[in-house]
C-alpha cells in the first residue's frame, strides 16, 4: 500500500469536515413532494403481495388487528402486514417524520385536525376518491378525511366525546339521564351527589382526555360551528361573552367533580367510574372497552351536558370521526396497502373491529353485536356536533384554550382564565 503524506491525510480530514458542513448547510425540506396542482395520485395498482407496514397509535387494538391481518393474509397469498404502533402522543409528534421515508407506514392512520392537515400539506396521502373502500362508508362521516375535492383519508372510527353514565347509579339516585338544559343537568348532578356518589369523574390532570368535555360544553355555547378555528384566527376571542359563559358553567361543575380533579390522571378517573364510585366519566365512548376491562358490569349510556337555558340548542351531543386511514404516497407497496384499507373497510371486517374494540365505525351496513355499541347506536342518528377541539391546528392554542377550563375548576376566575388563554392565542396570531 502506498503511503500517504501527513498533508494528504489532513486534506482528507478537512475535506470530510467541509463535506459535513456543506451537507449540514443544505436547505431544509424533504423527499416527499407536496401534491401538485393536479392533486394527489391514486395508489399505484399491482399485485397484492409483499410486506405492508400499518402505522397507528391504538395499542389496545393490536390483538384485533392481528386477527384481521390473519384474515387478510388468508385472502391474499404472500402478503404480510406488520403493525407499527406508537403511543398516541408520540404518534402525534413523530408520525409525519417517520412516514415520509416510506419504509414505515405503507398504510397508516391519522388524528382528525392538525395531524390530518399536516399530512395533507406534506403530501403523504394518496387519492382514495375512486377506491373500492370509499363506497363502503356513510357519506356524511367522510368529511374529516377530505381536502377540497379529494378524499385523502377514510375516518374509520366514530366516537362520542361525551360523559359516559353508569345507569344503575342514575336509577338508584332517580337522576334524569337526558337533561333538557343546564339547570336540569346541574339538578341531575345534585341528585347523584345526594345519593352519595361522585357525579362526574373528570381526568383534569390529563390534557388529552380532560379536554374532551370541552367538545360538549362549547357545542351549543359558541355562535358558530367553526368556533375553534375562528379563535385560532383571531375572529373570536376567549374573552367574548359566550366563552366566559361557558367557563362559568365549568365553574358550576366544580362541586360535582371528584376532589382534586385537576390532579387526576385518566386511569384513576376510569377506576372511580368502573368501581361505581362516580356516576359519570367525562371522557368519551372510546373508553368503553377500558372501563369494561376494569370490571365495570353496569349498563352504560351517554349523557350530553346541555348548556342551553331553554333546551333549544342546535346539538344533542358531540361526536368525532377519527382514526383516518390512508395510503402513503412514499410507499413502495401501495397496491397491497390500498388492499389492506379496502379490506378493513368491508362491512364484515369493520364490524369485527367495532364489536371487538367497542367502538362505532363509519362504515355502512355494519351489524353491532356488542351490547354497549347496540345501546349507544341511537346516538349515531342524533344531531351531534363534530368535536370542536380538533378544529385547532396549533396545539399550543388548543392547550391554552382548554387549560382555561381546567384553571376555572381549580379555582381561577373565568375572566382571569379567559384572559390568560387569549394572551397565548394573541401571541400566535
Amino acid at each position: 500500500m502506498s503511503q500517504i503524506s501527513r498533508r494528504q491525510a489532513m486534506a482528507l480530514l478537512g475535506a470530510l469536515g467541509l463535506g459535513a458542513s456543506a451537507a449540514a448547510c443544505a436547505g431544509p425540506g424533504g423527499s416527499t413532494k407536496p401534491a401538485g396542482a393536479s392533486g394527489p395520485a391514486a395508489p399505484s395498482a399491482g399485485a397484492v403481495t409483499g410486506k405492508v407496514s400499518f402505522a397507528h397509535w391504538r395499542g389496545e387494538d393490536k390483538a384485533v388487528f392481528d386477527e384481521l391481518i390473519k384474515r387478510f393474509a388468508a385472502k391474499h397469498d404472500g402478503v404480510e402486514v406488520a403493525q407499527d404502533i406508537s403511543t398516541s402522543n408520540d404518534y402525534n409528534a413523530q408520525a409525519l417524520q417517520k412516514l415520509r421515508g416510506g419504509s414505515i407506514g405503507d398504510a397508516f392512520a391519522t388524528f382528525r385536525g392538525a395531524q390530518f392537515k399536516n399530512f395533507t400539506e406534506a403530501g403523504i396521502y394518496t387519492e382514495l376518491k375512486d377506491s373500492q373502500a370509499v363506497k363502503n362508508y356513510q357519506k356524511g362521516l367522510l368529511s374529516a378525511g377530505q381536502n377540497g375535492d379529494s378524499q385523502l383519508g377514510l375516518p374509520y372510527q366514530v366516537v362520542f366525546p361525551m360523559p359516559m353514565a353508569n345507569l344503575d347509579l342514575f336509577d338508584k339516585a332517580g337522576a334524569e339521564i337526558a337533561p333538557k338544559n343546564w339547570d336540569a343537568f346541574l339538578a341531575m348532578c345534585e341528585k347523584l351527589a345526594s345519593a352519595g356518589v361522585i357525579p362526574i369523574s373528570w381526568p383534569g390532570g390529563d390534557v388529552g382526555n380532560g379536554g374532551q368535555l370541552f367538545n360538549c360544553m362549547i357545542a351549543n355555547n359558541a355562535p358558530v360551528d367553526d368556533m375553534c378555528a375562528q379563535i385560532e384566527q383571531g375572529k373570536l376571542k376567549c374573552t367574548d361573552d359566550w366563552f366566559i359563559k361557558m367557563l362559568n358553567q365549568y365553574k358550576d361543575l366544580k362541586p360535582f367533580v371528584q376532589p382534586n380533579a385537576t390532579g387526576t390522571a385518566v386511569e384513576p378517573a376510569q377506576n372511580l367510574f368502573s368501581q361505581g364510585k362516580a356516576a359519570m366519566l367525562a371522557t368519551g365512548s372510546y373508553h368503553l372497552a377500558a372501563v369494561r376491562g376494569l370490571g365495570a358490569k353496569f349498563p352504560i349510556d351517554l349523557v350530553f351536558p346541555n348548556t342551553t337555558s331553554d333546551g333549544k340548542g342546535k346539538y344533542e351531543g358531540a361526536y368525532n370521526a377519527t382514526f383516518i386511514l390512508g395510503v402513503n404516497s412514499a410507499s413502495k407497496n401501495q397496491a397491497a396497502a390500498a388492499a389492506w384499507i379496502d379490506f378493513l373497510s368491508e362491512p364484515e371486517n369493520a364490524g369485527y373491529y367495532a364489536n371487538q374494540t367497542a367502538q362505532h365505525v363509519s362504515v355502512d351496513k355494519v351489524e353491532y353485536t356488542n351490547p354497549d355499541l347496540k345501546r349507544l347506536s341511537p346516538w349515531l342518528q342524533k344531531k351531534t356536533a363534530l368535536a370542536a377541539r380538533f378544529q385547532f391546528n396549533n396545539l399550543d392554542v388548543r392547550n391554552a384554550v382548554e387549560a382555561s377550563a381546567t384553571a376555572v375548576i381549580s379555582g381561577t376566575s373565568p375572566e382571569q382564565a379567559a384572559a390568560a388563554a387569549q394572551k397565548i392565542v394573541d401571541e400566535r396570531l
Partner: protein
Amino acid sequence: MSIHPGTAAKRKAPDSAAPANPAKGRRRSPTRVNPALYLFPLPAVAVIAFFLVMPTLQAFQYAITDWNGFSAAFNYVGVDNFVRAFTKDSLFTNALTNNLKFVLLVVIAQTVFSLVLALLLTKNSRGSILLRALFFFPTILSSVSVAFIWKFIYDPNFGLANSVLRTVGVDGGAYLGNDAQALYWVAVTQVWFHSGQMMVVYIAGLQAIPKELYEAAEMDGANKWQQFKSITWPFVAPATSIVVAYTTVQSFKAFDLILGIAGNPPKSSLDILSTRIYSTFANSEFGYAAAQSIIFMAMIALVTWLQRRLLRLTPKGD
C-alpha cells in the same frame, strides 16, 4: 500562505550525501509519525461529523428559518425566532422560569441531601453498604418507571400519599393538580431519583480524605462542625463540583420524567425547556424549535459556568 525561499530550495536540492537506496539508508526520526496513522481517527471523525457536527450546524441553520419540518419551502427569518422566544412567547418564558426554578430547587436539595447521606454512610460497615445500595437503587430504574411510580403516589384519589394521610385523618392535596405546588412535587421525585447516585460521588470524595487530618483536628479541640467546615467541605469541593454540574444538566433535561409524570403535553406549571421544545417541534414549528434548542444549550452552558464561578468549587491549582 508563504513558503520561505530557503526552505523550498532546501527541499528541492538533492542531498549529495544521500545513499542511492533511500529506503535502506534514510534514517527515520524516532519522533516522526507514519502519516498513514492519521487515517486511523477517520472513522471516529466521520461519526462525530455526521452525528454531532452536522446536526449542530443544521440546528443553527434551521433556527434562522420558519421551516415547518416537512415542507420543501421555507423562508429565512434572521434572528426573529430568537426574538420571539424572549419577547412574544409567554409559554417559552414560562418554561424557562419553571426550568430555572426547578434547577435551583433540585441542585440545592440534591446536593445537600446526597452529602448528608454520604456523611452518614461513609464507613464501610455492613449496614452502611446495605443502605447505600438501597439509596442507589432508584438510579438504576428508568425515568419512565420512576415517573409512573410517583404518578401513582401523587394521585389524589387512590395514591399512596393521600391514602397514608387519610389514615391519620388528613385530607391530602391535589399534588400535581395544584399549579402552585406541582413543580415542587416533581422536584421531590427528581431528588429521590438521583440522590443515591450523587451520594456515591460524595462517598468516594469523603473516603479519600486522610484520617490524620481529623485526628489532628480533634487533638486541637475542633468540634464536628469545625471539622466539617475546615476539612470535609474543602476536600469534597471537587466532588461537589461534579455533583452540582451533573445535577444542573440533569435538571435541565428532566424531559422523560416530566412527560411521564405530567403527560404530553405537560400543563404550563410543569412545562420546562425540553418539553417546550418538544411541543414546538410537535406543533410543526421546526425552525422555531431549533432556535429554542440553541437557547436551551446556551442556557445550560451559562448556568454551569456561573455556578463554577460563583461557588468557586474548584480548589486552587486545579
